[in-house]
């Protein structure tokens, strides 16, 4: 002890800078900061000089100038006279739409395939294995282009599709997209809306009440069935009371394409299918690993307690499997969102294609556009990971 102290007391000598762990750490960090500072100064200086040489300025004023290009899928009002900012907004919404749709479909398919992969049925589990291996090992960009190529080249033109009468003359599948009748809600739909809100409120209340009753008395109510009936039944009843104020807008062939109705554009469909199928293969593997991670003893113990198989699955296996599944699932959702940026390859107008593509080329504001796109993706990623972290905490094992 005394030796160590006297050693410490010797004071600072120059050689301690690299001999002593503590001083070395400080020195290293100072060097790193200095290096970083020099690097940032260097590139900022270069950027300023380069921009000056090209006669460009750095700024986001261009966002207010008219975009003067068309976007084929816009969920908010947009025409070619709208500003670049609005074009970007359309792009963000399009990215969001394809990401959400993709996540929903990929999750459903992924869980389905993951469970089928574990099936006792040899044929089914082999089939799913082939699907998973083939989809996982082919670049998603190739899959997007393949789906798009198949849709555009192999499906009939609108004229042929209309001549074939589609499905009962109301649903048409052509290389311009899938056209389906669009619902047009008349007056009185508001009552159904109110009924839906009431039904949901009732469902939540009933679930809490049923749990309390079960805790107190042990009596079990079929909560799920009753809630489902209420949530579907009540709005339907209200709707019927108002005399079904609903008409359908049916797509019709006008000129070279269908008019009216709702449409799934080929670009969206190809991107959606390819992203979902690709991500579903990864999710299937995650789900399989998660279910296999729950030891068989858990199932056996649950049977020994007299739980029926569906309860065993719902109350014992799935909650434990989810703990293993959720963290990697999060990164798959993030990957899907980021992969949606490949939309630019087939002309789906997402944020990369609008701000990072056409706007960038039109205005020549490379730096600003790329910064905007990156910031938006960072925000998307952060939002998804925050939500999934919250969900993960919600289902995590509660320990002492």
């Amino acid at each position: 002890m005394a030796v160590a102290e006297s050693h410490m007391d010797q004071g600072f000598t120059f050689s301690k800078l690299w001999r002593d762990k503590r001083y070395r750490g400080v020195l290293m960090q100072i060097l790193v900061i200095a290096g970083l500072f020099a690097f940032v100064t260097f590139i900022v200086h270069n950027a300023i000089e380069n921009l000056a040489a090209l006669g460009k300025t750095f700024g986001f004023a261009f966002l207010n100038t008219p975009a003067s290009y068309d976007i084929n899928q816009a969920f908010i009002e947009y025409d070619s006279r709208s500003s670049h900012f609005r074009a970007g907004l359309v792009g963000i919404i399009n990215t969001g739409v394809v990401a959400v749709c993709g996540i929903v479909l990929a999750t459903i398919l992924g869980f389905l395939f993951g469970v089928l992969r574990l099936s006792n049925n040899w044929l089914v589990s082999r089939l799913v294995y082939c699907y998973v291996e083939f989809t996982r090992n082919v670049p998603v960009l190739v899959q997007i282009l393949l789906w798009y190529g198949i849709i555009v080249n192999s499906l009939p033109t609108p004229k042929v599709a209309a001549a074939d009468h589609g499905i009962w003359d109301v649903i048409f599948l052509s290389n311009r997209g899938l056209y389906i009748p669009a619902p047009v809600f008349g007056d009185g739909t508001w009552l159904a809306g109110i009924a839906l809100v009431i039904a949901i409120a009732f469902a939540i209340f009933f679930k809490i009440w049923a749990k309390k009753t079960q805790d107190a008395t042990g009596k079990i109510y079929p909560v799920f069935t009753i809630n489902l009936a209420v949530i579907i039944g009540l709005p339907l009843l209200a709707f019927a009371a108002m005399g079904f104020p609903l008409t359908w807008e049916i797509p019709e062939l006008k000129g070279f394409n269908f008019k009216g109705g709702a449409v799934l554009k080929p670009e969206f469909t190809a991107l959606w299918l390819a992203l979902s199928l690709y991500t579903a293969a990864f999710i299937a593997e995650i789900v399989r690993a998660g279910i296999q991670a729950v030891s068989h003893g858990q199932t056996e113990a649950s049977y020994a307690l007299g739980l029926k198989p569906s309860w065993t699955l719902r109350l014992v296996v799935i909650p434990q499997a989810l703990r293993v599944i959720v963290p990697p699932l999060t990164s798959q959702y993030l990957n899907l969102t980021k992969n949606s940026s490949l939309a630019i390859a087939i002309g789906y107008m997402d944020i990369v294609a609008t701000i990072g593509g056409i706007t960038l080329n039109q205005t020549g504001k490379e730096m600003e556009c790329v910064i905007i796109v990156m910031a938006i993706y960072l925000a998307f990623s952060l939002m998804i990971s925050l939500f999934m972290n919250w969900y993960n905490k919600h289902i995590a094992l509660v320990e002492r």
Partner: protein
Amino acid sequence: MTDISQDKSALQDDHGPDYAPGTHPSLPPPSSSVGPIHWIRVNLFSSIPNILLTILAVWVLWATIPGLLNWALFDAAFQGDSRSDCRAVAEGACWAFISSRFGQFIYGFYPVELRWRVDLAAIGLVMALVPLLFDKVPYRRFGLYFAAAYPFIAYFLLMGGLGLEPVETSKFGGFMLTMVIGVTGIAVSLPIGIVLALGRRSDMPIVRVLCVVFIEFIRGVPLITLLFVASTMLNYFLPPGTTFDLLLRVLIMVVLFASAYLAEVVRGGLQAIPKGQTEAADALGLTYWKAMRLVILPQALKISIPGIVNTFIGLFKDTTLVIIIGLLDPLGIGKAALADAKWQGLAAEVYIFIAILFFICCFGMSRYSLYLENKLHTGHKR
């Protein structure tokens, strides 16, 4: 003893031969519990849901396989000079398109008379990889020396110099470009990823924060935006007047991207190593780098092999994104070829061909990872 056996032998005619306890020869199992019939019964028809699944699976196979085989093989055209030639012969796939552009798909626009250099580089790659990947190879020592020298050999073979005719990187393309980006990316990103992972777990707060910010930033944005940076923005950050090869810029971005993902994989491995290992290494008086090199990293890397290989596979697949900024990898060649009026509308053939190309490489990598996992699994096997 004899009495009993005689007694029993009297009954022999009725009940067959009799045996002392434990001496009965094994009977063959009942025919319903062995053989293909039993296998089918257990694996395909064990319960009603199982039977339904089997019917569903057979229906899926019946609906897809014959049509696919007809299209791809039996009703396909393998020769011809245009799409109409193909259609004249057969209704299915037009593989003549692929064979007519096969050279471009593999070599891009690399000068035809110099393609032997690419072939040589490819043979060299195999010769360098085999001793690296498998440890029971004769003369492995020399193989490893060769592998260490290979990057320089490949550089001069592909780019020219040292008496070889120089070739510009803008001529690189096709599958060769994929290999150049993929192999360079894999080789360079692994060490950077390890350093980043160590930095993220460092005791020095500034180093740690820098590594976290870098990793999370790169993982938060899509590769495509980084490639946009490479193609449009990077020139702004360089001293005025410098030009910078586009392929090199792309390579830098791909390496940065892959190394951030690798860092997270390696960090997972590092976290799984008990603290006692670091403490024991410290107690032995090892320096930080020695402790990492001799004690921590061998264990951490071993358990993160599946993740590392998955990242490599991801990197290899992501090389296709370079078409968005105008480099001509197989996908770029295919898209350019599809614009040819002679061959319009053959998207499926092109993309399926490219898909198979990538599938072979990526599936091979994942199988190798399984092999390596089994080989390095020195713990207690269950």
